[in-house]
């Protein structure tokens, strides 16, 4: 029997969408609401290659051996509202951490379909590292410079014209253009190597891969980073479901699988000559925004993958 574990905050839209699909298909599921961690408990042991234990949610204890899949949308438990008034090291904070640590460790070693395991999500923590993996699958990456030398940035800008900068890691990852005004504070890069990229133009396409299923969305927006249009004064993005040309879908599936991911959101840009840039593979995509605007059944695909039926499970 398939029992799916949902991990996160039930009102969060992507989690709620997948849960609704599971309810609609009559699939048994268990929700670990991380805000109710105080009423949860987990214990297991790994012995002789066998993993046995339980997850208690409220008054109900679930055998871990019965959980065949999990959809994970956990937020950083340190910042849960229930802990906002708790001092560091408090008993409640420690209990919260222990429950989450046990859960996260189990998700890494549990057999079954885990969407996604944390270990597989790591490549997104270094953009230039992930770019080196991405290019092995035939996608282009914009010319990128990571440097602590202001002169190298100026030379890069002379070569490429328009240049953007963004964090090298996954933290504070908002794209900004390197303008003439910004050059006045360029010496700040000497404190830490900073990432710059040649600005490339084309059509933004967000691709969601779920196992073998692919959903492509064309994104039309004047903002430099369409995820944050307000700060740039641009209007909201227009989203349209499209079919991907050529073998892009196959390459996206292969890249996602080889990163160890069952579900990913790829940020592509398709140039006029057909060449395809891949800026990023997001291992925990907020797909609901795209589904709500296009009607693409992404949550249904995720639910199908979790239950092991449909194309997504191929």
């Amino acid at each position, binding site marked *: 029997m398939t029992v799916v574990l949902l991990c996160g905050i039930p009102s969060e839209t992507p989690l709620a969408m997948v849960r609704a699909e599971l309810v609609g298909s009559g699939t048994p599921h268990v929700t670990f609401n991380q805000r109710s961690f105080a009423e949860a408990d987990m214990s297991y*042991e790994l012995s002789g290659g066998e993993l046995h234990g339980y997850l208690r949610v409220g008054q109900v204890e679930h055998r871990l051996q019965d959980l065949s899949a999990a959809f994970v949308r956990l937020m950083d438990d340190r910042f849960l509202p229930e802990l906002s008034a708790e001092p560091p090291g408090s008993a409640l904070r420690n209990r919260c951490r222990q429950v989450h640590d*046990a859960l996260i460790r189990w998700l*890494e070693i549990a057999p079954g379909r885990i969407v996604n395991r944390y*270990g597989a999500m*790591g490549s997104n923590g*270094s953009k*230039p*590292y992930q770019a080196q993996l991405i290019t092995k699958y035939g996608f282009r990456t914009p010319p990128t410079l*990571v440097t602590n030398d202001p002169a190298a940035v100026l030379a890069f800008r002379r070569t490429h014209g328009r240049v953007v900068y963004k964090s090298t890691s996954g933290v504070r990852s908002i794209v900004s253009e390197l303008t003439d005004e910004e050059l006045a504070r360029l010496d700040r890069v000497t*404190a830490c190597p900073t990432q710059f990229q040649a600005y490339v133009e084309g059509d933004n396409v967000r691709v969601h891969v779920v196992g073998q299923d692919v959903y492509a969305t064309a994104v039309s927006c004047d903002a430099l980073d369409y995820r944050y249009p307000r700060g740039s004064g641009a209007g909201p993005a227009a989203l349209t479901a499209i079919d991907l040309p050529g073998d892009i879908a196959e390459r996206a599936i292969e890249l996602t699988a080889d990163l160890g991911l069952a579900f990913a959101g790829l940020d592509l840009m398709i140039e006029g000559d057909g060449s395809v840039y891949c800026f990023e593979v997001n291992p925990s995509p907020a797909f609901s925004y795209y589904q709500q605007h296009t009607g693409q059944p992404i949550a249904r695909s995720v639910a199908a993958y979790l239950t092991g039926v449909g194309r997504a499970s191929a």
Partner: protein
Amino acid sequence: MWVILADRTDPTAWWAKQGLAAHGLESVELLTVEELAGATRWVHTVASDGAWFEARLPDGRVLHSEDLAGALNRIRHLPATVVAPIEPSDRDYVTQELHAFFLSWITAIHGPVLNRATPQGLGGSWRHPSEWARLAGLCGLPHRTYHSGDHLDGLPHPLAGSGPLAIVIGDRVVGDQLAADLEAGCVALARRARTPLLGIRFAWAPEGLEFVGADPVPPLEHGGDDALEALVLALRGQQ
């Protein structure tokens, strides 16, 4: 040029520098993480056709990715001293940025690297004891029972203990002698973990030896000359 990347307090790195040269590896340089993080100039480029880097170290040495034949990579993490001069409010951010940067430029080394940097560890994947136990079991190695409540007070060193210590280097196992089936399990574990250089600690149990832990940054001295020979072969791609 071959390079050893390591913390400046890592005695194994200094031992390996001497030993690898004595075993015929030409031009071995030791680069400490402190020197690398303090480079006065870093230029790392990534493009559709490849990745490169150039660093000018504090002592004036210049490192070009094209000049590197390969690396023995023993960088466990970035020491706190590296970000000590940064404003406290930015320290976590800069640490993440530097980690992301190191992960990328180490990946841009074109030749053999033992071990390749991964998101889980700059010197090879660091794994929780539960993950190692799971992988060990999948590779046929008997392992201690892992309980989810273990290590609540902190994780032990992965190679803590006094039982036999094996070191996998490519296809070879050096260090303490093991039965053939355990050696095969060690090689399988290193392959499954995509960590070609791996220290593996065992402990005596009533039924025989059992897996205790594994570390991608092992004390190579434990393997002596055998370890150096295996390293030279692995770095030259002769295994």
